[in-house]
């Protein structure tokens, strides 16, 4: 997760929150949140190397498949959940969203936008597209359910997930007029606070 995303989450998360980060990677975000926001944080991760990195980082982590694991975290007293660039890797993203909102009152979800012009060009070229956010080849990608910003926001409205805050980021990971005005075309990534 890059610095921009870290600063957004740092900005949104209340001090002393109890946080669960699904797909926490090497635990960097949780470490930063612990240092700056005094959170009590737990990561959920299934990759042994990343888990090891979490242990080195001094971050509490649970080795578990996210799809199967999310619902185990209901009633555990979390008030904040993070799912950074993992939602499209899940087998049932809609169920996962419902479950996350039962795990915590608020959650941050980041989404690689499959509607971005660069990816659209790739498709026009007749090839599966790749980008900084989605670098893997089609035969190696972990992504199962890619979607566009428009798709995701439609799902939120259908399911009455309240989008409290949104930040659209361009390919360089910063906010821009273009990305804000035509997010589905120019944003490479969207960050949502959902409650």
């Amino acid at each position, binding site marked *: 997760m890059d610095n921009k995303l870290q600063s957004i989450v740092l900005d949104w998360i209340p001090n002393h929150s*109890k946080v669960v980060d699904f797909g926490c990677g090497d635990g960097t975000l949780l470490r930063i949140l612990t240092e700056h926001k005094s959170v*009590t944080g*737990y990561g959920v991760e299934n990759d*042994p190397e990343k*888990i*090891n990195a*979490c*242990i*080195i*980082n*001094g971050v*509490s*982590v*649970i*080795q*578990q498949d996210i799809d199967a694991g999310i619902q*185990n*975290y209901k*009633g*555990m*007293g979390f008030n904040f959940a993070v799912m950074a660039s993992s939602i499209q890797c899940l087998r049932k993203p809609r169920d996962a969203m419902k479950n996350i909102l039962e795990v915590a009152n608020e959650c941050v979800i980041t989404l690689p936008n499959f509607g971005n012009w660069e990816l659209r060009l790739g498709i026009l070229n007749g090839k599966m597209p790749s980008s900084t956010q989605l670098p893997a080849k089609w035969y190696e990608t972990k992504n199962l359910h890619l979607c566009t910003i428009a798709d995701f926001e439609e799902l939120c409205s259908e399911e009455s997930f309240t989008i409290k805050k949104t930040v659209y980021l361009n390919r360089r990971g910063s906010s821009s007029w273009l990305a804000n005005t035509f997010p589905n075309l120019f944003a490479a990534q969207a960050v949502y606070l959902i409650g």
Partner: protein
Amino acid sequence: MKVITKKIPFSNPLTLQSGQTLSSFELMTETYGELNSERTNAVLVCHAFSGNHHAAGIKDGDKKPGWWDEIIGDGKTIDTTKFFVVSLNNIGGCHGSSGPTTISSESGQPYGASFPEVSVRDWVETQKILADHFEINCWEMVAGGSLGGMQALQWAISYPERIKKAAIIAASSKISTQNIALNEVAREIIKKDENFHNGDYLAQDKSPSKGLKAARMLGHITYLSESNMSKRFGRKLQDPENKMDADINYEVENYLQYKGEQFAKTFDANSYILMTKAMDSFDPARDFDNDLVKCLQSTQAKLLISSFDSDWLFPKEYGLDIQMSAIKAGIDSTYIELDGDYGHDSFLFYSDQYASALKNFLNSNG
């Protein structure tokens, strides 16, 4: 690696969880490495059911090294150039600490069956007394597998301010019903040995070694995974020249016979019963309305809970159960699921994933 093996006497009476008292007791200990001047680099390792104080290195005359030799040593996972490692034989055992084979000062006879019932909590109490003896105010880590992991968990609960990290490996906060059942079969086999004499075999100069051997054979199966046994032995027939018994057909039979016999030579039947009873009764949540979350509430130590995928004696759900309670209680706790081919015994053996998790946990900032 500096190794010191020493029997340490404690003259104050020890009141056990059962309410019974030992007027004095001895602990057989072994330490590795050196305690730093601040006394902050101490690691306690707790042995499992049939282990003892000899955790690392090879002693003169021994063929096999200590039970955790793959993990403890200079430059190893628990690096004895950095840490002072304390290992001990728990009371009730039969390798030098007070137990059923010890001569009772009151009767002048071996305690035998009259040695009081001991619990995991009692062991932690004696280990705390041992920490005081070494003037170790706070363990950097308490670690153990199986019954040893239960002691690490009990430490985190009993003495939150005296332990920074607890590595709870292939363990649980209480054993499964199936596990109690298996222990009971083992005890029954021992008790039905004609030489058991209600546990007073030492006074009669007898040994229920047949029962002890058979009990261990049963136990040994539970420590291994089905796949590991298949890989190691398959259906290979035993070479006729090395048969333990004329009736033996398969290698696996010979292996169990051999392991059982070796075990019966070095272990005490009353200790076997005491140790399995201690394992059965371990359930720290019982004093907290059966709520493990409440039980963990005052814990300050960081926990590392590890389960092995091939362990059917302490299935991973049990490790995960401690983890979920720890999360609910809001304490630092990590849960990992390791690939280990050896079943329950996997905790004894080095693997990259296992060793790096344990090493990084031990070296992470408390």
